[in-house]
C-alpha cells in the first residue's frame, strides 16, 4: 500500500548520519525538487530483478531485503539494506535492468527519484556524484564478499547465509 508524504530532506534530523543524504544545501534543495516520498507497507516489492530500471529508492525509514532469483524461481538473499541506503543505483547508472529484487522487511518511508532526474542531478552536483561513487564501492565490496561466500563456501549453509 502506498501513500504520499511531503517531507523535505533539508528538515531531516537524521541527514547528517547518512552517507548519501549528507549533501551541501544546494544539492539537497535540488534533490528535494526531484524526489517524491511515499510510505509502503512491509512486504512491498520496490522493484524486481530484470525489470527495466525506472529510478532509485532511498530508504528513509525501514529495511529492505535484496535478493537474486534463478529462472526456476529459486531465491538467494544478497543482503539486508538499512535506512539511508539508495537502492537501484547501479541499474539506473548502467541503463540496464535491476540486477536484484528489493522487498521491504518493515513498513517503510521511501524517497523515489526517476532515472532521468537522477542522472541530471548527478551531472549537476559533483558532491552527490562522489557520494554515489563511494556508495557503489561499498556495495561492490559487499557483493564480492557474497561471491566469495557463495562460490568458495565449504558448506551449503555458509553459501546460503545472507550478509547483513
Amino acid at each position: 500500500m502506498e501513500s504520499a508524504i511531503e517531507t523535505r530532506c533539508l528538515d531531516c534530523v537524521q541527514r547528517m548520519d547518512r552517507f548519501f543524504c549528507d549533501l551541501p544545501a544546494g544539492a539537497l534543495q535540488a534533490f528535494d525538487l526531484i524526489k517524491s516520498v511515499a510510505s509502503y507497507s512491509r512486504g512491498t516489492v520496490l522493484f524486481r530483478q530484470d525489470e527495466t530500471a525506472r529510478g532509485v529508492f532511498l530508504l528513509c525509514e525501514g529495511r529492505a531485503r535484496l535478493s537474486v532469483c534463478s529462472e526456476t524461481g529459486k531465491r538467494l538473499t544478497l543482503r539486508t539494506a538499512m535506512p539511508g541506503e539508495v537502492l537501484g543505483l547501479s541499474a539506473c547508472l548502467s541503463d540496464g535492468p535491476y540486477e536484484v529484487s528489493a522487498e521491504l522487511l518493515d513498513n517503510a518511508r521511501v524517497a523515489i527519484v526517476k532515472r532521468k532526474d537522477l542522472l541530471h542531478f548527478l551531472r549537476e552536483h559533483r558532491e552527490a556524484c562522489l557520494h554515489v561513487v563511494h556508495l557503489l564501492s561499498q556495495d561492490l565490496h559487499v557483493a564480492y564478499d557474497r561471491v566469495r561466500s557463495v562460490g568458495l563456501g565449504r558448506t551449503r549453509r555458509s553459501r546460503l547465509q545472507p550478509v547483513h
Partner: protein
Amino acid sequence: MLSPYGLDIIESCLTCKVRADRIFCDLPASALQSFESIKYATAYPKGAVLFVEGQAPRGIFVLCKGRVKLSICATDGKTLILKIAEPGEVLGLSATVSGKAYELTAETIDPCQVNFVKREDFLRFLRDHSDACFKVAEQLSDKYNNACHEVRALGLSHSAAEKLAKLLLEWSSKNGEALKQEPRLKLALTHEEIAQMIGTSRETVTRLFADLKKRQIVQSKGSTLVIRNKAALRVLATNG
C-alpha cells in the same frame, strides 16, 4: 615505442586512437589533460600480478592493452575467477575509492599495457572532474551488476553442467556470434581456469566437455569451440 613484451605502447591518452570507444577514457580534454599528468604508463608480461586480494589499495590500473584475470581466493587456496577484464576497464576502483583492501587479485594473462594512478591523485582527480566521477560511477555499476550475476550463477545453479552451459552461451553472445546458427568461440582459458570460473574441479570440466562433444552439442577445432546445438545447450543452461 616498442616495449620488451612486444607491445606497441600508447604513450599519451590525448593521442590514443581507441579512447573514444572506451567508457572511462572518453573524457573531455581538460580531464584528459589532468589524467595524463597523474598516470604512469607501464608494460607487464603475461603472468604479472597487478594487485593481490587483501592488499591495501595503492591506486587504480586502467587496462589499455591485454587481458587481466580477476580472482578471489579462499583460505584453503581454492580460487574462483570472477572475470577476464578487457582493455578499457579500470581495475582496483572500489578499493581505491573506499580505502578498503583490494577485494580481488588481478593477474595479466597477456602482455599488458596498464596506466597506473596513485590513490591520492585519483581521488583528487575525481573531486576536480565531475565527468570522470560520473564515468567511474558507471564502471562501478557495471562491476556491481557483474558481481550480482556471479552470485546468481554460482548460488542458484543446480549443477556444474548448468554453469558450464551458461558460461559458454555467455561467451558466445559477447563476440557477435550469438545470432549465428553455430556460434564459434576462442577458448582462451584452460580447463583448470574454466573450472575456477564456475566453482568446480578441472576433472569435472574435462568430463563435461567430453560429454558435450559426445552428444554433438559442441565440437572443438584446436582452441576454437563450435556450438553445434545451441538449443540443447540452452536446455542444459536452464535445467542443468
